């Protein structure tokens, strides 16, 4: 695997040898490493008007809960420099309606589907997994653990290694053993590798890195928080360096775990950064609001960027950014701590 050709050859992306874009997330095989992100694609139907959703890696659906949820009051969003805050509050129709309507549509449409689930208690996650058992069209489950545990002082599952592991153990036990299960991690923790290790021990098949980072904005006209929910999740290019750092750290700590990288991806080169940092695939979230064909465009741009750098497949580029250093050692040596 020598790869010395970083010089761009003009037109190579279009005319050069085609790059093998096939990707895997555990046992989920996809023709492309570019997916949508949960909550940024609904259930694929709207985006199918702008690009063929069967041509990207997979649709990651909006996190679904057991029962219908109205979500939070408005304003639910606020633009921030190179990003946005959202506090939607997981509005959705509930798992049964989701299976009958949305999932059925995705299956008929022939799109690969990663179903994101969210609960307010460990039991609720378990019930959701049970409901999805033996349902056609569930290619993988992404467990959104960035939710408050109502039973225990609203402690966020994703911020506590033990709680996060409990959710994963329950989901693993309740679901079809063939279905890959991903845990979606929050960046709002001291050491993301600790949570990663904990859910991996609990039997997760892969990690989605990262969910939004908690933030807030105060409206200086009203002199009150801009969001009705006071705080919200920050997403978009503003969090890209944080997401990338999380992917890098987890890849250092866990050389073999499949990683779905997500956070501020806007272009093929952004996606390439995540893959070089160790992501096996990437999700395009907020930037789909900016450009409804973003996932498809990013996929094409990524293929071009890989070809430009002489890669014949996405697979070869995964973790390529770690080469040379003590790549898969326990502690990274080259990392700089902030002053």
């Amino acid at each position: 695997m020598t790869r010395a050709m970083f010089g761009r050859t003009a037109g190579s992306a279009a005319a050069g040898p085609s790059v093998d874009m096939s990707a895997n997330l555990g046992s989920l095989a996809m023709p492309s490493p570019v997916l949508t992100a949960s909550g940024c694609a609904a259930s694929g139907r709207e985006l199918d008007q702008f690009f063929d959703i069967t041509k990207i890696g997979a649709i990651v659906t909006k996190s679904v809960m057991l029962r219908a949820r109205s979500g939070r009051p408005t304003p639910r969003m606020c633009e921030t420099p190179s990003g946005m805050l959202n506090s939607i509050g997981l509005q959705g129709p509930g798992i049964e309606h989701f299976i009958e309507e949305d999932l059925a549509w995705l299956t008929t449409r022939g799109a690969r589907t990663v179903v994101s689930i969210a609960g307010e208690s460990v039991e609720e996650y378990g019930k959701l997994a049970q409901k999805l058992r033996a349902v056609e069209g569930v290619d993988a489950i992404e467990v959104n653990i960035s939710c408050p545990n109502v039973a225990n002082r609203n402690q966020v599952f994703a911020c506590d290694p033990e709680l996060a592991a409990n959710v994963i153990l329950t989901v693993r036990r309740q679901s079809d053993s063939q279905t890959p299960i991903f845990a979606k991690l929050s960046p709002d923790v001291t050491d993301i590798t600790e949570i990663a290790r904990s859910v991996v021990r609990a039997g997760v098949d892969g990690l989605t890195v990262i969910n939004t980072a908690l933030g807030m904005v105060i409206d200086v006209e009203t002199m009150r928080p801009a969001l009705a929910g006071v705080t919200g999740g920050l997403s978009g290019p503003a969090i890209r360096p944080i997401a990338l750092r999380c992917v890098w750290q987890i890849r250092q700590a866990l050389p073999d775990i499949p990683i779905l990288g997500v956070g501020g991806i806007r272009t093929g080169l952004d996606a390439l950064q995540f893959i070089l940092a160790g992501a096996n695939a990437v999700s395009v979230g907020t930037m789909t609001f900016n450009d409804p064909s973003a996932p498809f465009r990013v996929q094409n741009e990524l293929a071009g960027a890989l070809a430009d750098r002489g890669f014949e497949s996405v697979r070869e580029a995964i973790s390529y950014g770690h080469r040379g250093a003590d790549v898969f050692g326990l502690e990274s040596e080259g990392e700089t701590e902030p002053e």
Partner: protein
Amino acid sequence: MPIQVRGEVLDVRRAGTYYVLSITAPGIPESFRPGHFVTIGIGGEESGLILRRAFAIHQVQSRGVYGGTLDVVVGVHGKGTRWLSERRRHDFLDIVGPLGKPFVLPKEGVPCVLVGGGYGSAPLFMLAEQLRERGCRVDVVLGASSEDKLYGVLDIKRVSSMLTITTEDGSSGTKGRVTDVLPGIMESNNSAVVYACGPMGMLEAVAAIAAEYRAYSQCSVEEAMACGIGICMTCVLPVIGEDGRTRMVRSCVEGPIFRGDLVRWAEIGTVPADALGAPALDAS
């Protein structure tokens, strides 16, 4: 079905405090109906302003030297609208449209009244033309805080049976608000349908007057939107459905036009306790 096109700015004109942009948008005029909107990307491909801005489609032309073109009326509000007001001929814009559900038109030639607040008059021009073609009487009321914030007074006069202007400072027309003159107009013309576009407060008041006169109302709402195409769930408001249940519905795909009597105006910005999936019901 909405499409995404790269549109060329053909012209930017000043009109009072507004800017009217004419943009090529091949494919959009063909499926346009009055009430549809577009979203426009702000600041180019590397912009830090990542959210598209929504604008009512004011005029469309499907033929002519430039193929399909459309006009939007832009009021400068913050960074995004300022950037748009600074566009010049031959600049390119990223346009998605037509979006939303359009105004519902009556099957027969019934008397209608169109109410526009500020730039809210923008979508009413082509609506007025289509209503006229159906043989409807079209009365128009335009209101704003001051004369420079009225849009299109002379042009809409040509397509209206009767035009009434109100300004809060009295700089043009009747001093006051559209809702001060609306009951009189509905009374004397027996208006069967009220169409309204403008600030939420105005829409709420117009919907109440329409209900009082037993007229059907169609209101174009303005909720902050992150995507405009139905994938983000930011643009919701409480609306009563056909089954009598209130749901938090997406104004970008199920609106922006709603029947005035079905929107729970006073509860916008809240989740009513009886809404589907509201926390209050979760406990039961």
